[in-house]
Structure formats: C-alpha cells, structure tokens
C-alpha cells in the first residue's frame, strides 16, 4: 500500500522502529559514506547513499563469532540494488543459522542517486523484491510504500493517509545494454575466452578488494583462534577467491594456481553458477567493485567488451 507522509511522520516511524530494532543507516564520514548504527532514532537519512561496504558488514560481520545471539536489525536507506542483493544473501544463508533470519530483519528502502559506475538497470531487479517499507521523496512530501505485514503494522501505529499517486520501483541507472544471456554463455565456454581472461588477469593485482566490497561475495573461512588466555574461539572470517590460500588443499597443492584461474572463477560464480543455484546472477550492478579496484578494472566494460568480441552463438 502507498501512503503520504511528512518529516514529522517519518520521525514517528523511526521511533516505532527503534523500539524493536537496532537501526542502521548511512552516515557521512569525511568524504565517504559508512553504513553505521544510529544510536538514537533521530537524524536517520532515509535517502540511500553508496557506502564502501554494503549491508553485509552488519548481518555477516568479519570475524563473526558463532556463539553470539542474533540481534533484531532494521536496515534503512537501502537502494534497490542492495535490497535485491540482500534477498539473494538471505536465500543463500537461509538454512545456515549463521545470519539473521528474515523475521529478525526490517528492510527499509530509499531513493538512490546513481553515479557513473552503477549499472543496476541491466538486471531485472524490480519484480517480487522482498522488503518491508520503501520511502521515496517527492517535491514536498514523502511517499511510504509498504510491502509486508511488518511494514503495515508500523504504519498502522502512526496512522498515515493513503496516497493515490502512481508509484513504481525502477532501476535508475542508465548504462549501455549488456546481454546477460550471452555473457553467461561466453563465460561458460572457457576454451573460447581463455586468451581474453589471460589479458584481463595481466592487468589485475589479485588483491581481492572487489570481493571485500561486493554485497554478494559471501565466501568465508572457518577459523579456530587460540586466544592467549587459554581458550579457543570459532569464528568466520571473510575471504576472497583471489587469495592464495583460498583454493589450497593438502601439502600446499593449489586447485587454482594462477591469477587467471581465480579471476575466471569469480566471474564464473557471478554469472554462471549464480543463475544455476540461486536463479539470479550474483551481481546487482551496484558498481562498488569498480570504485574499489586499484587496478582500474571495470566489470561493466569487461563483460560488455567480451560480448562484443564473441558476439553470436558459439
């Protein structure tokens, strides 16, 4: 349902959420935005910003201690791409019990202002996204769109008026068309694209910065940390398929010894295995990896130039 609201109403919404959940939103920190906890329900920015690390640092923090209880968390100001990523993330971990269950999360979306690295319009993000509230700004009022009973309950407590304006969620970025089906086919055919990946990996450091910031890179190492006071702690550490110990097995034997194998594996997981396992590519076009890469590699250009090089059915 769609409702009208003003600034005062949104403050009330924040207070209602704050009673049940820990609220997280975007905070400006120097020249970058960080996704951090709001100590008080005031000054929440409902507008979405592109933080360096996405929501994954809150529901799946680095060094996650498995003995801890999950907290109820409200993630506010998520852009459409982040909501889509969060849906896939929850799908991947649904049976694991490692991260919060859907019942323990409140997902609140917000308007975004896409930059030159965004390419979310290439992925079909709109239909059947699972979120609770979406807050969108119009000239002098806000539109609150609720999509679940959790959202409806919050709005019922405040009593907002319904709105009859037309409203649809749409990917805002405008990027040149990429044929994802062709990309999938091309990446799956390694013999054909072998030289192409070699060329890209010559320009890649293999540092793993892209995997650190990707909202859909969820590979982890299970570590047993011996603490100096005599105990032992089981924790999950983020890792990256570019790391040299990621695909190592006994006696230092490496299943993916060269950087080109690792790079290929990253793209293969994103665009081939992702659609097979989770019915959607493991990329939502947020462009964070483009901003993070020290070698100036651009995933958007890499897949579109591959499609140009190997155009039709092969």
């Amino acid at each position, binding site marked *: 349902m769609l409702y009208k609201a003003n600034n005062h109403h949104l403050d009330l919404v924040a207070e209602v959420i704050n009673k049940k959940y820990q609220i997280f939103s975007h905070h400006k920190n120097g020249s970058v935005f960080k996704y951090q906890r709001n100590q008080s329900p005031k000054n929440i920015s409902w507008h979405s910003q592109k933080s360096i690390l996405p929501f994954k640092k809150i529901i799946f923090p680095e060094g996650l201690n498995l003995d801890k209880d999950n907290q109820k968390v409200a993630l506010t100001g998520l852009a459409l791409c982040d909501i889509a990523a969060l849906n896939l993330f929850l799908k991947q971990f649904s049976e694991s019990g490692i991260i919060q269950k859907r019942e323990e999360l409140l997902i609140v979306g917000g308007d975004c202002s896409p930059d030159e690295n965004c390419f979310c319009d290439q992925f079909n993000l709109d239909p059947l996204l699972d979120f609770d509230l979406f807050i969108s700004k119009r000239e002098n009022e806000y539109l609150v769109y609720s999509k679940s009973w959790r959202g409806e309950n919050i709005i019922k407590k405040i009593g907002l008026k319904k709105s009859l304006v037309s409203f649809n969620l749409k990917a805002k970025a405008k990027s040149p068309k990429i044929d994802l089906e062709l990309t999938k086919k091309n990446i799956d055919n390694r013999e054909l694209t072998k030289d192409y990946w070699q060329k890209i990996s010559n320009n890649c450091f293999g*540092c793993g910065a892209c995997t650190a910031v990707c909202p859909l890179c969820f590979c982890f190492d299970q570590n047993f940390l011996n603490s100096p006071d005599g105990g032992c702690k089981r924790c999950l550490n983020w890792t990256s398929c570019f790391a*040299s110990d990621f695909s190592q097995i006994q006696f230092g034997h490496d299943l993916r010894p060269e950087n080109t194998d690792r790079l290929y594996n990253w793209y293969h997981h994103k665009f081939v295995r992702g659609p097979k396992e989770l019915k959607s590519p493991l990329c939502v076009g947020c462009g964070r990896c483009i901003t*993070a890469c020290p070698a100036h590699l651009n995933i958007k250009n890499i897949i579109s130039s591959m499609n140009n090089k190997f155009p039709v059915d092969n």
Partner: protein
Amino acid sequence: MEKKKETQQIFIKKSLAIFSLTCCEGCQFELLKDYVNFNHLLNFYELKNFRLGQENNLDGPFDVAVVEGTPESQREYKLLHQIRRESKIVVAMGACANLGGIQSQRNHLPAKYIGKPEVKTLYDTIKIDFSIPGCPITNTEAISILVDLYWDKIPKLPGHAVCFECRLNENECLIKKGLPCLGPVTVAGCNSICINSKESCFGCRGPLPQANFIKMKEILSAMLSKKEIEDWLTIYGDYQKKWLGINKRDKS
C-alpha cells in the same frame, strides 16, 4: 575463574628465546606493547633468553627461537648458526629478518661507497620455519602466531593483499586518488594501519605470492619517475627478489 586457573597450571611450558641481531629492536618493544597479552604468553612459554626484558639469560636448547634483525658481524653470524643448531623452530620476526630491512638499501649503492659485504636476510643464511612480517610487527598477530606454535598448529599468513583489509576498514583507495601505494602487492595482516591514517603502504610486510609487479610498475609510472619506482620497491629490501624466491619455493 577457578577453572581457568586450573587449566593454566596444566600447561607444560615450552622454552622461548627472543634474539636481536642488527636492527632497531622495535619489534621486541612491539611484543611488549600489550602487557596483558605478553603475560598470558608466559603461561605457555618459559622465557629462557630475552636480553631486552630480563637479566638472567640461559643458553639453549630452545623449543622456539624468535630472531629479529640481519646478521652483520662475524659474531652475529656465529650466533645465528648456533640458534639454528639449538632450536627446534626458528621464527624470523620483522621486516629486517624477512626482507633485509632499511639497511639492505646499501645493496643497491655503488660498491665504492660501501666497502662492506651485502646485507643478507635470515632466509639467505639459515633455514627459517615461520615468519612474522611487518615493520614493526603487529602485536596481536605475533602473539597469536606464538600461541599457535605452542599448540603445534601451523601459523598461516593471510593470502590476500592489504587492499582487502583496507576496504574492510572502509578507506578510499589512494591509488584511485593518484597517490602511490604498495597495498595491492603486499601481504595483509596489519589491519591496513598506515592507510587508516591516510599514509601510503610502503610494503613492509613483503610481497604476496600472486603479486603482479608489472602492473604495479605500470600504475606507479603515472605518479613517479623510474628511479623513484625502484626506490619504492626497495625500501624494506629487494621486493622482487624475495617474490621470485617465494614462487620458486612454491613450484619446487
């Protein structure tokens, strides 16, 4: 609490020795930085030899010997070989022991200025079992490596670059801003401490096995001259030489 005390008494202590060759001794101070952790370490180890911290030092044999610095004089070479003979595990601590350190810059000077033999790392001199990199080392990492060694667990350095940790700390990329930084080719584990305070990474922790030096030089060449790039890559010893060494060891 009582239960904890009991478990502490069960530990059969191993003997530990911490030696210092030619260097600034900063790594030893870094070990002592966190007294609580260092005290915990003494539950596992009997400190047999630690010139900086105690007066009565004993001779070997040792279970674990930690060595920092590079050997310079005949006496130090002799001491080093003696350490290797008498200890089960030898750990190279700090950038000097692993890469050659600041003093190894003299290897790149013309011979007439020096009149001294080349600076050799511990790897060039004796067989080293494990290493704790960094200049100075990271306290938490060093303590956890020593605890792992007590439990006969093989300590492992991270396989990813400083960039990975730098993004975890939500820093902006310095290379993207046009500043030189060796993060992409350097082993992680320092929690990107330099870049957190807006300083470039100088690569004190040594190169990654997968480091791409050709690309690194290409990116640095837009910011620095050729001579400066050579200087950057040899601040803590010859980076690429060590890297070639790693790759040879991996393939053999």
